[in-house]
């Protein structure tokens, strides 16, 4: 008799879970369910099993480098430090005029200097100059002068921006390679081993361009410190970023034929396409893939906005702020991301449309999980989805002692277009499964383009995780009821 309530709660929870996971099943169907253990509500019908969408293991730290970077859009005062410091920028890409070197350095970021921004582009009449290949001497003199003027500065020298786009380069690929070689030689001549020189900075991922530069340098005795390209999908799937990085790591970075050139890092000079720039879920999608792919740096792109403004020229952190310096939704997502990068824990998603990043200690006494639901641009997606979040390795969280159940809180973040936005506290996701060292949360609904922050902290009242099925089911049902899961889609 005493078992009856347990069964009742379990069935209610199972029904809720079934409803929640219907859209999830749509997403899961074509996707390999990676890493997520099959969970079940204890005592429930066997058919009501589900797979967590995302899986986090706090016992597995993962080295990560914060991939917060910006393009242009800075002066001595704006944006204010208070709007930049929480983002912990690691990189800034500019022309020295579009973002002052000293301020960038004071913010703790590395500076990538786009040499061609100072020379000029065919689409802008070469700023009164001529094409480099029409006067190699002028090109090398220009680069040499620039190198001398910046001696002592810690710069990455990005030789030419997007030579695969006619606005920026109307010469041949061979002429670009020669421009690179001449610039590289001059910069090394002036600055020696300390200089970091990067290319080809194509507008999109181009295996052909990347290999062409490296092969050219193998023969021409130039070196490539950083291999660069831009990840701006232009209608292609955002989720191809991970595949690009896997290919580059396996075929180029691990290739002895190129290691001899001194290739040290992969930089993605511009990320976030124009159509994605106002969506926090998409931003997390870019960042999760780039981080898993092991890039050294990634910088946000700048784009025109609806009222004729261009975020390249405005001091809005590439559109993360509006012109009144108010925070848009992606600013918050980036701040959440940035504070967790130094204590990253392993996290994997079974579906490319759901991005996940976890951190063990973004602040004292807390762990966080970031989830984004992004339009991948390559398939139709439901407007909302439920998300199961499996959290393992809880004992490794210093603030949870003796198998305590963590306190779970959550905030959602919805983009409001070009209007400012703030995170909204939402009911905590239900704990649908609990076991020693492991819990499974169920997020009722996450809208497309949105981001979710789940924070774990020490329990307000000390509790114990119990592995026995009845107790786990009671815990799950209780929490699910509180979270109102049954009203979920």
């Amino acid at each position, binding site marked *: 008799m005493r078992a009856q309530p347990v069964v009742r709660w379990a069935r209610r929870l199972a029904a809720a879970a079934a409803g929640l996971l219907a859209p999830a099943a749509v997403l899961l169907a074509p996707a390999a369910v990676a890493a997520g253990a099959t969970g079940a509500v204890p005592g429930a019908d066997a058919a009501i099993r589900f797979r967590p969408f995302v899986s986090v293991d706090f016992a597995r730290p993962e080295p990560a480098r914060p991939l917060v970077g910006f393009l242009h859009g800075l002066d001595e005062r704006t944006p204010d430090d208070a709007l930049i410091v929480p983002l912990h920028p690691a990189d800034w890409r500019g022309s020295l005029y579009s973002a002052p070197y000293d301020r960038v350095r004071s913010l703790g970021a590395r500076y990538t200097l786009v040499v061609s921004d100072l020379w000029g582009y065919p689409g802008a009449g070469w700023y009164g100059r001529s094409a480099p290949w029409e006067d190699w001497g002028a090109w090398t003199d220009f680069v040499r002068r620039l190198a001398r003027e910046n001696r002592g500065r810690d710069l990455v020298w990005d030789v030419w921006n997007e030579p695969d786009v006619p606005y920026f380069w109307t010469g041949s690929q061979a002429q670009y390679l020669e421009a690179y070689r001449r610039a*590289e*030689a*001059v910069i*090394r*001549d002036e600055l*020696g*081993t*300390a*200089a970091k020189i990067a290319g080809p900075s194509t507008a999109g991922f181009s295996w052909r361009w990347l*290999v*062409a530069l*490296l*092969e050219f*340098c*193998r*023969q021409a*005795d*130039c070196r490539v410190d950083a291999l660069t390209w831009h990840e701006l999908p232009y209608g292609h799937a955002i989720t191809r970023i991970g595949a690009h990085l*896997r*290919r*580059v*790591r*396996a*075929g*180029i970075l*691990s*290739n*002895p*034929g*190129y*290691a*001899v*050139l*001194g290739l040290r890092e992969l930089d993605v000079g511009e990320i976030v396409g124009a159509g994605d720039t106002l969506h926090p879920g998409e931003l997390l999608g870019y960042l999760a893939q780039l981080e898993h792919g092991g890039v050294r740096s990634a910088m946000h792109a700048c784009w025109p906005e609806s009222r004729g403004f261009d975020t390249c020229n405005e001091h809005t952190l590439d559109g993360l702020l509006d012109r009144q310096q108010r925070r848009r939704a992606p600013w918050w997502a980036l701040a959440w991301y940035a504070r967790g990068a130094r204590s990253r824990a392993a996290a994997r998603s079974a579906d490319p449309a759901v991005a996940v990043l976890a951190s063990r200690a973004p602040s004292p006494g807390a762990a966080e999980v970031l989830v984004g639901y992004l339009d991948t641009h390559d398939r139709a997606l439901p407007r909302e989805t439920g998300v199961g979040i499996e959290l393992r390795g809880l004992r490794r969280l210093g603030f949870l002692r003796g198998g305590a159940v963590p306190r779970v809180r959550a905030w959602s973040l919805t983009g409001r277009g070009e209007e400012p936005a703030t995170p909204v506290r939402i009911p905590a996701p239900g704990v649908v499964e609990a076991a020693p060292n492991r819990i499974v949360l169920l997020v009722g609904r996450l809208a497309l383009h949105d981001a979710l922050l789940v924070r774990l902290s020490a329990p307000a009242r000390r509790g114990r995780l119990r592995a026995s099925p009845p107790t786990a089911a009671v815990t799950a049902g209780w929490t699910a009821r509180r979270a109102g899961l049954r009203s979920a889609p």
Partner: protein
Amino acid sequence: MTGRVALPRRMAAAAALASALAVVAGGAAPAGAATWSRPASVPGSDGVGFPYAVAVGPDGTAAVAFLRDGVRVAVRRPGGSWTTARKVSRGHGAVTTPDVDVDGRGEVVVAWTENPARPGRPIRGSSFVRVAIRDAGGDWGEPHTAGATPQFFAAAPSLAVNARGDGVLVWRGRRLIPHAHHRIQAAYRLAGGRFAPERTLGEDGIDHRAAIDGDGHAYATWAWARRPFNVPTRLRLAELGALGRWTNPATIAQGHEGGPRIALPGDGAVVLAWRTLEQGIGATRTGLPAVAAVDPAGAIDAVAPIALARTTSMQLAADRSGDVLAIWSPAGPAFDPASTGVDVLSWTVRPRGGTFAPVRSAPGLRAGPLAILADGTAVTVWAHDGIHAAVRPPGGDFQAAEPLRARGRFPALGGGGDVALAVWLRRGALMAAARAG
């Protein structure tokens, strides 16, 4: 595919002598008795990067050549102790692509490319292929110049030294006549001597490799490239003939051939493994595995291709009995869109005087640098989620992968006597693990 090339016939005598030596050399500890040592850092290698090279002599003396403010060499004695790394280049010029070998007396020969430019500065003007030699007593001689080259990275000297100390050095060399910018160049030495004089092999090429047998017969193979560059079309082979002249290069295969490896089984044949039907450019090329044996009369017994999955590189080695082992793995998805991405190590064996056996495969393994020890045990190492090794006992199949280290990149391998030494890069230092009987 069969054919004939004009190679000198004196290889037959060499084969007989090598065969006799193989019998004298006798056996070694059974393969199963050997284990890998715990990885330890190579002395003096903190702060190094790629490239580097490793070799092991017949007596177990091993040498690791690497770049740190010049070319440095650390020697591992047969008992396992290391010497401190010694800088063997002079001055502060830019250096790259070292190669190293060890002869039967424990003499260490190291070759590299050097340019007068200071490290990190632009490479200018001619570079030089330089050689330094450490005698069996442990004393390093002054480095000498084997030849010049307009290349720096691509000169890539390939060095081979036999047990008695004869050596051959092949590199992509200097501009000899106007409008013919590069030539494959070679230099030879008799035991105890210097590499000189520099000789041309008559044409340009890439992927060059050197080999020398126990009698001092030297060979070079490369891929002859038709302009525009990086499109090799013919696999070429030349032998150092009498009076120190190289034969005209013979074509072993033509089409899109590249990445040759060469082994000398001692039966008078020259065995080659390479990629045929190549696609891609430069270091991203893939091709179908191909093998050939060229007999002393110049007849070519080729199986090209020998398998139908594309590979990025072939590895080849001969053991003392004259068996030749060729190994390869399918190219990954990064190189070949049709790749399944499944790890498989495939191999074929050409027994002494015989023909290539059917291909065998071991799933879960990868082909990397290959060495064959005195008893015929074959060892290969590779990097994929750490450093791994696999061993094939004489005449057997490759055994399960042995993890050497959880992290590491660019493994290199040397083998001689009963010692295999794997070296790899880990956080700016070289790590080494030895497998001894």
